[in-house]
């Protein structure tokens, strides 16, 4: 553990907290541009969060402690994930505490709490959203695990820093297994982050919502935390994807201050490109019927399995 490692650790978590709303704002901006509309300011998510923190929270009379606890659990889970994903440097001291499987576990923890909270109040929309969220989750999680397993097999470890270290410092060549995993991971990320084609983050139609339906009963600081947590989740998924499939620019584990300084603009540039790609996918797709989700996430799982088989059989 070096000083640079500690620094990059805190820099990474702090940067994730600060950048997450910007990423959401950037995607919204790109979507507006692609639809020929003038875009909302990129800082809108920050203003929304600030506005929500300044409001008085309204909580239903029959809310149990789970309902009040959930925003903190979800937000905490997302901050923890942000801390263990090697987005800037592969020397991440905290990452020793949790590997790739624990990361999926952290996401699952957040999902379970938010689904429980949604059902807690007993409104129809909350339960509907929770049910759909679990439906999407049980299809997406195995695929995500398979993607991470393939990456683990390549590096021989489930520790995220060693996976990224191996991937970042391998010879530049096309790895078919990574290509398959990359496609699978993109599909899982769309579903997990409530994006089109699985969910529509911009809709106001209660009956079609998945993620938003679970937040309907929240207000003020609770909602702010949950909004921030969703932004963090999007950033985390983006960072995992970038670390696994585009690990260029991530500093190594040798305490090189210069490399860490360079890793920040590299990450921002990659996130910018990723956000634009996300907006592009969302613009050209329509939202699919909820029961098409298996037809969308099933292939994601198959591709992830294929990636693993390719790796095992071809060793590439």
């Amino acid at each position, binding site marked *: 553990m070096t000083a640079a490692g500690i620094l990059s650790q805190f820099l990474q978590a702090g940067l994730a907290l600060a950048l997450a709303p910007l990423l959401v704002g950037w995607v919204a901006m790109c979507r507006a541009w692609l639809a020929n509309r003038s875009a909302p300011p990129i800082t809108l998510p920050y203003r929304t969060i600030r506005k929500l923190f300044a409001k008085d929270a309204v909580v239903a009379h029959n809310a149990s402690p789970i309902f009040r606890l959930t925003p903190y659990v979800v937000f905490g889970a997302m901050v923890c994930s942000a801390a263990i994903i090697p987005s800037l440097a592969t020397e991440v001291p905290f990452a020793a505490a949790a590997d790739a499987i624990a990361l999926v576990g952290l996401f699952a923890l957040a999902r379970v709490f938010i689904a429980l909270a949604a059902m807690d109040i007993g409104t129809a929309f909350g339960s509907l959203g929770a049910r759909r969220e679990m439906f999407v989750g049980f299809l997406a999680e195995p695929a995500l695990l398979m993607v991470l397993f393939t990456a683990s097999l390549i590096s021989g470890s489930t520790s995220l820093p060693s996976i990224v270290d191996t991937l970042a410092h391998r010879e530049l060549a096309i790895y078919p297994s990574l290509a398959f995993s990359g496609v699978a991971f993109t599909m899982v990320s769309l579903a997990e982050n409530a994006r089109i084609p699985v969910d529509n983050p911009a809709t106001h139609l209660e009956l079609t919502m998945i993620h938003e339906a679970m937040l309907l009963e929240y207000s003020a600081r609770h909602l702010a935390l949950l909004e921030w947590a969703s932004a963090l989740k999007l950033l985390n998924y983006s960072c995992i994807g970038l670390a696994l499939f585009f690990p260029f620019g991530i500093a190594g584990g040798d305490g090189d201050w210069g490399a860490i300084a360079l890793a920040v603009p590299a990450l921002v540039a990659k996130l910018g490109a990723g956000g634009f790609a996300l907006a592009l996918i969302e613009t050209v*797709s329509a*939202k699919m019927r909820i029961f098409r989700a298996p037809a969308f996430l099933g292939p994601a799982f198959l591709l992830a399995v294929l990636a693993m088989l390719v790796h095992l059989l071809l060793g590439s």
Partner: protein
Amino acid sequence: MDFSGLGIPFAALPSPLDARRAPVGSGQLVPACRLAREQGARLAALWTSDERDRGAGFLLRVALADRDGYVVLEQSLPDLPDVRFADVSAVYPEANRMQRAAFDLVGVAFDADDQRPWTWMAAWPIDRYPLRRDFEASPAWQPGQEEYEFVRVDGEGVHEIPVGPVHAGIIEPGHFRFQIVGEKVLRLEERLSWVHKGVEKRFESMPITEGHRLAGRVSGDSTVAYAWAYAQALEAIAGEPPPPRAAWLRALALERERIANHLGDLGYLGNDGGFAFGLSQFSRLKESLLRTNASLFGHRLAMDYVVPGGVARDVDAATLRALDGECAALARELTTLRGIYDEHDGLQDRFRACGRATPELARALGLCGLAGRASGQAHDLRRDRPVAPYDTLDVRVAGRTDGDVAARVAVRFDEVAESLRLVREIAAALPDGGVRTALPEVPAYRTGLGGVEGWRGPVLVALDSGPGGTIRRCHPHDPSWANWPVLEHAVIGNIVPDFPLINKSFNLSYSGHDL
């Protein structure tokens, strides 16, 4: 229609729609309706009025339409306790809510099983009836809480989801009660009337020559259709048709209203399918059309453009000359956008086989207008009962038989294309002359019937004149009355998240229905 077997005579009814009136005695109403239905007639409207001040008790009128025109059955009931009208919904199921609304407003019950209130929402005491002539509202009345009996579905895993009347988006209020198992809709029941504004009562305090302004606000998206239908009814009573140029300009405004609404709907249908690109493109086209409207008619929606005796002003000549180019450009863009919609797998997957109203269902429940034409009910007043200028324009009526969201989208595309053609023809062949004539004094105690094919469907206005240029009774009838119940059936078996898309594909009026 031929009621000779029942011995019911016909009398003339002032209207440009080949309308006749047929007074029926007690016991004849349902047989007459049944006979009319066997002859292929559809229910067009049902309304009641209080005629006790003229010693005629309560009057029920049932407007039926077939290929010969309209027939308005009229039945009077004396003002006695416990008298009831016969149940028209036994023949025409869509009469159910019209009858309940009629009871809430006038206070004469129908002999039907379903006696739940429809328009009444505890805003006034349950034993007061606003459309009675001796009705006096009191500021002391406190709004109450009405308990509406929804039909519940029992069974393992069946849930009830109440939606609305307050929605997450800025849309009109309607309450939808779903009975679902999993995501599948077993039953949907609508509860409307949240925007009851007392429009029909308000008419009765207006001069008859001013009523077109209120008619034009019954449902803002159909302002031209309502104002024109009102003007038709009034002009029929007064016996003074509008000058030719005015009639053509009204048609110009009506077709542009149809284009604007269809463009908006096409955009929102894409958006509800998660395809925001469609919304921004169609909104752009609609906006430029509305701006042209503003310079043509002096109002983006042509509100108050149609007036009794003609239109409010002549159109701007320069804008009129530019219409041909505007329509051609719009038609080109539409062809491109239609290609994008048709070839988008994700969108077509959402549209096809979604919210199906089969032609059999549509015929049984009287689905009309745009939604009807998507379900094999090829009726269009512009072709079936053409008034000038439609008698010379030869309107091609769009039609599909699938009855799903895709069919309603296709009908909209077809109708926009046809309306663009009509706008170009109207602009090219617009006759010269004045645009407004003064109406002679309106005779008292006459009834006129006007009807216009609005973008949503046939808009009817039945107008009774009172003494001294007053309105005695005015019933504007929106096509949504017949189409709302069909939506309940079209949703059955679909999944819950498809409802907003299905609802949007019908895009029915709340305001025009709740009155």
